[in-house]
């Protein structure tokens, strides 16, 4: 595997933003983070639903299956059924 290192020039406001994110990450984990960690976090965040939307959607989705009474045991049972069907075949 070839690893390529890239040096990027960033302006002061971007650096300020990255430092803010780095500080936030440190607050959330209690350990030191690098500016690279902040960049990686931003990249991952950009590919996923925005946090504000995710929080709202999580509130809407929490407990939506309560009335159906689906349990972890149902999942285990269905997975076992699938295995047994393959075995029958």
């Amino acid at each position, binding site marked *: 595997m070839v690893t390529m290192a890239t040096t990027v020039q960033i302006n002061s406001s971007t650096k300020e933003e990255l430092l803010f994110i780095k500080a936030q990450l440190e607050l959330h984990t209690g350990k030191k983070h690098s500016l690279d960690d902040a960049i990686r*976090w931003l990249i*991952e965040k950009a590919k*996923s*639903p925005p946090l504000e939307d995710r929080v709202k959607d999580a509130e809407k989705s*929490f407990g939506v*299956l*309560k009335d159906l009474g689906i349990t*972890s045991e*149902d999942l285990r049972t269905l997975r076992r059924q699938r295995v047994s069907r393959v075995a029958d075949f």
Partner: protein
Amino acid sequence: MLRTFNLVVGSSLVIDTGVFIEFLSGTVAGGKISEMVFKNPFIASILINPLTCIEIYYLIRRKSSPERAREELNKVKKLVRIVPLEEFIEIVGEIKATTSLSLTDAANIALAEYKNIKVLFKHEQELDDQIGTKSDMPFRSRIVFVDDFTFYSGDRKGTIS
């Protein structure tokens, strides 16, 4: 507690169907999963593989209509990023070849390996048996059990590796 979780799990993670079902069913554990994962501002991305979507759909479908299953699955899709299986097929195959895990479990662990992140499971007999009996199980270090954070405190914090 949340700091320990963040430190162990990292800012991107894969979640298994069992974890999702707890959340969607609105259990006490599901409420904690909601806070620790979905509402946690540290978590940048939550990944699932397509087989998890299929399992959630058919679990609902067995007890309800196709419309309801579609509706609830659409809600799930808003919370996560679905990674196509073809991106990490070989890793899934490798795990399936060396364990007797379900295809979905294998795909979840493979996705975590592919993305170099952790996968969040609930303790289940089958998975515990596999991990307990196979110390050399491939990619074991990728697995984190949500129960270790939601139901226990103190001594068990951060014991996952």
